[in-house]
């Protein structure tokens, strides 16, 4: 009998502990596992090391004071360049330790982690501010005739990983239907087995996946996944093409609320104080009220 890996958002995050290293898939404000992040906010877990091509996932966790260390290629909302909570976390130095990498360096760190290598070499980052502000980064000299000195990007290993895909079967064979996988496979690959959680818009049968798109979209296989959660609209307010685009209006409201203490409290009370179902209902209600 094949393993049924279906679980719930709350059961998934209940396996995490304070102090763990968590990798979050997606890119900026694109296909972020937001319902898993919202579930994490409902726990008391703190002192996390968060690794991300960051968007509102990083923003929300920073705003809630759950992040001890942040490793990022950037943190942005794409259509709004600057993530407001990340911005204030940096400007008020509320995250104890930050590791800022070139975007390609972060891919290399996760790739090295997923291949069980100690590091991978690159030129990206050499000579830049990245090495100025990360003095623990070391270089390696090519053992061949060129003897070129390269940056040795240290592997990142994760205790837990969250990704959100379009479709999955109940065993964790999953499918992306949008234009980009981003680095979701590497986040899963760099993670210790046990807490590799994949939420998706819809759980389907294995056969149904190829009825919807070609085999090229099957980039996540079940050996990379420990738990599958069906979470419709789970990436909201980030995009999850082709199921839905970014909710630009809601994102703008999020940014506006983040700029003011009282408004942010009201936003939290309205959207982030209940379950995922409460969140989705509150968003529907908000849409009705703001429909023009």
């Amino acid at each position, binding site marked *: 009998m094949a393993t049924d890996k279906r679980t719930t958002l709350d059961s998934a995050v209940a396996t995490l502990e304070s102090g763990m290293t968590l990798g979050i898939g997606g890119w900026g404000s694109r296909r972020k596992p937001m319902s898993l992040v919202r579930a994490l906010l409902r726990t008391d877990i703190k002192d996390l090391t968060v690794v991300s091509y960051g968007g509102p996932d990083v923003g929300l966790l920073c705003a809630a004071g759950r992040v001890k260390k942040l490793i990022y290629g950037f943190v942005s909302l794409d259509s709004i360049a600057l993530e407001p909570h990340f911005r204030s976390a940096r*400007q008020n130095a509320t995250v104890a330790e930050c590791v800022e990498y070139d975007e390609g360096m972060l891919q290399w760190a996760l790739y090295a982690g997923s291949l069980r290598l100690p590091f991978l070499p*690159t*030129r990206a980052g050499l*000579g*830049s501010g990245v090495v*100025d*502000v990360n003095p623990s980064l070391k270089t390696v000299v090519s053992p061949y005739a060129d003897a070129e000195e390269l940056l040795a990007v240290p592997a990142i290993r994760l205790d837990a990983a969250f990704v959100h895909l379009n479709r999955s079967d109940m065993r964790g064979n999953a499918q992306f239907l949008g234009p980009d996988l981003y680095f979701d496979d590497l986040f899963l690959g760099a993670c210790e087995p046990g807490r590799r959680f994949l939420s998706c818009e819809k759980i389907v049968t294995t056969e149904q996946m190829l009825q919807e798109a070609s085999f090229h979209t099957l980039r996540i296989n079940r050996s990379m996944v420990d738990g599958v959660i069906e979470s419709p609209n789970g990436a909201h307010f980030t995009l999850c093409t082709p199921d839905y685009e970014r909710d630009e209006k809601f994102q703008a409201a999020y940014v506006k609320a983040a700029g003011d203490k009282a408004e942010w409290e009201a936003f939290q009370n309205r959207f982030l104080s209940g379950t995922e179902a409460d969140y989705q209902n509150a968003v529907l209600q908000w849409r009705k009220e703001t429909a023009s």
Partner: protein
Amino acid sequence: MSTDITLADIVVIAAAESFRGDGEIFASGMGTIPMLGARLARATFEPDLLVSDGEAFFVGNDLPLGGSDKVIEGWIPFRSVFDTVWSGRRHVMMGASQIDCFGNTNIANIGPWKQPKAQLLGVRGGPGNTISHATSFFIPKQSTKVFVEKVDMVSGLGYDRAAQLGDTVMRHHRLPRVITNLAVFDFETSTHTMRLLSVHPGVSVDDVVANTGFVLEIGSDVPISRAPNESELATLNHLDPRGLRHREVA
């Protein structure tokens, strides 16, 4: 110059010119004017360039900004973008919040990195771009706050930092152009410090110097940045039917 040619038109032509001679590489533009520059160069004098929709596809036709009638000629998700960056087959034009005389640039933060006064974009792909392939810059509002003695965080390598890294890096590192609302610059001097290449119509050399926080190399006869010809202007209006370029510089 015909009176209906605007500063934005001049700047887009300068942006397009920075891709001249690049051949069959990925001409990548961050923002409206750099993107228009790449598309205009491809539509006119540099037909083999590859341009993207800014999402995940190479666009094979002369797609207007915001246009949906796109011919997809290739798939370029972020992973392939990084591969292309490191392969060197790319020339990007991006922004800079600060730039110094060697072309060190900063898009990351203002003030100390540890606790910035203003957190901006972070280094993003700047380190990998500048060490791997040609990187040009578009700066919509030149001032002494942008053209500075020393940048607060090096997100993109200038010529001095590249030179310290040895021959291989120096071979790959190239900053062809810096384009602002006032003028066009390059680094083709013996010391690889910034040189004034041309001033836009109506701008004096003194205006440029007054808005530069370091010593510029200036020749005895600085030409005026060229205007688009009639056919280039028609192509530009096709690529930017709503005139979005005019919102970036005025």
